[in-house]
């Protein structure tokens, strides 16, 4: 199966939305969306997961390329999608912070936008794996658990959420493929985790 995405041009940006939706992320390619354990079309779990991981990596690279392109095209530095005053307040909550240059909250406004986009994008990959169309807290928890740079966020999402998210996925996959599940009480390990390329 071909893990590479179709070459259709990006859809026109939704009105008001500065970010063009990456074409490859939706609809999911056959490899990601098709039931990998259907009897007629059996794809070994390792291969399916590896394809999914490679596709996810490619989507992320496209995401960052798109972000850079948009920043290049930015001309309006007065209007932001996040309130600068509130950002400044959050910065000042740190007692060690004394003076803040005007440009610092401006940088954060754009960086926080990128952060929200990235974390949402990664969380959505998890929702799609679980065949859901609603992004849940557990999806964000899974994205945090899978991404090393988001380790500072582990306290925000209780460990259970991330564990439950991956355990549910593991249980579903294991049941479908007949792989023995971990005994109750044993920390759940996603059997597919061994096949995943670590998300960067």
């Amino acid at each position, binding site marked *: 199966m071909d893990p590479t995405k179709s070459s259709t041009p990006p859809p026109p940006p*939704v009105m008001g*939305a500065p*970010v063009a*939706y*990456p074409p490859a*992320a*939706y609809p999911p390619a056959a490899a990601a969306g098709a039931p990998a354990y259907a009897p007629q079309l059996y794809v070994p779990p390792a291969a399916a997961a590896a394809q999914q991981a490679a596709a996810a990596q490619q989507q992320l690279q496209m995401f960052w390329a798109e972000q*850079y392109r948009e*920043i*290049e095209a*930015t001309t309006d*530095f007065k209007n932001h*999608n*996040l309130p*600068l*005053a*509130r*950002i*400044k307040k*959050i*910065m000042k*909550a*740190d007692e*060690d*912070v*004394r*003076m*803040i*240059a*005007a*440009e*610092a909250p*401006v*940088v954060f406004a*754009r*960086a*926080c*936008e*990128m*952060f*929200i*986009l990235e974390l*949402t*994008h990664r*969380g*959505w990959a998890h*929702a799609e794996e679980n065949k859901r*169309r*609603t*992004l*849940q*807290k557990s999806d*964000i*928890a899974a994205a945090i658990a899978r991404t*090393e*740079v988001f380790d*500072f*966020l582990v306290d*925000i*999402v209780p460990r259970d959420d991330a564990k439950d998210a991956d355990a549910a996925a593991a249980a579903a996959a294991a049941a479908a493929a007949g792989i023995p599940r971990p005994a109750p009480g044993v920390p759940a390990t996603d059997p597919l985790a061994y096949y995943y390329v670590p998300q960067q």
Partner: protein
Amino acid sequence: MADQPAGAAGEEIKEQDRLLPIANVGRIMKQILPPNAKISKEAKETMQECVSEFISFVTGEASDKCHKEKRKTVNGDDVCWAFGALGFDDYVDPMRRYLHKYREVEGDRAAAAASSRGAAGPHDHLASGAGPSAATGHFMFGAIDRTDNNTSRPGNFN
């Protein structure tokens, strides 16, 4: 000044202050999702918390650097440096670019304002892409003191 509300109401206000508005956060999340995707309220609230933590995390690192270098003001370069120091490598180049463009635009605006007031604007050295110290010096008048109460001043942002 009116008395601070006591108990839960007072904590609610502090809660809002330390989070970015859920409407803004939700709108940005929607941008990256397919048109028919939904976002649970809990997911948006979690994202609010994550963003605030992101700001605090990066600000702390940037602030530490300023302390080490005996500087009082956290500027855009410090924030960009902190992204790299904390492992947000993908953020560094785009945000440095963004900061550079912002300084160009603001430099032109400030220079225009200064020359209209009759003062000699520092237009040339800023436009030539001078080093961070020059740019920082230029924007010092826009720096926000901890004691600042958001009073409008020319050159300061609201």
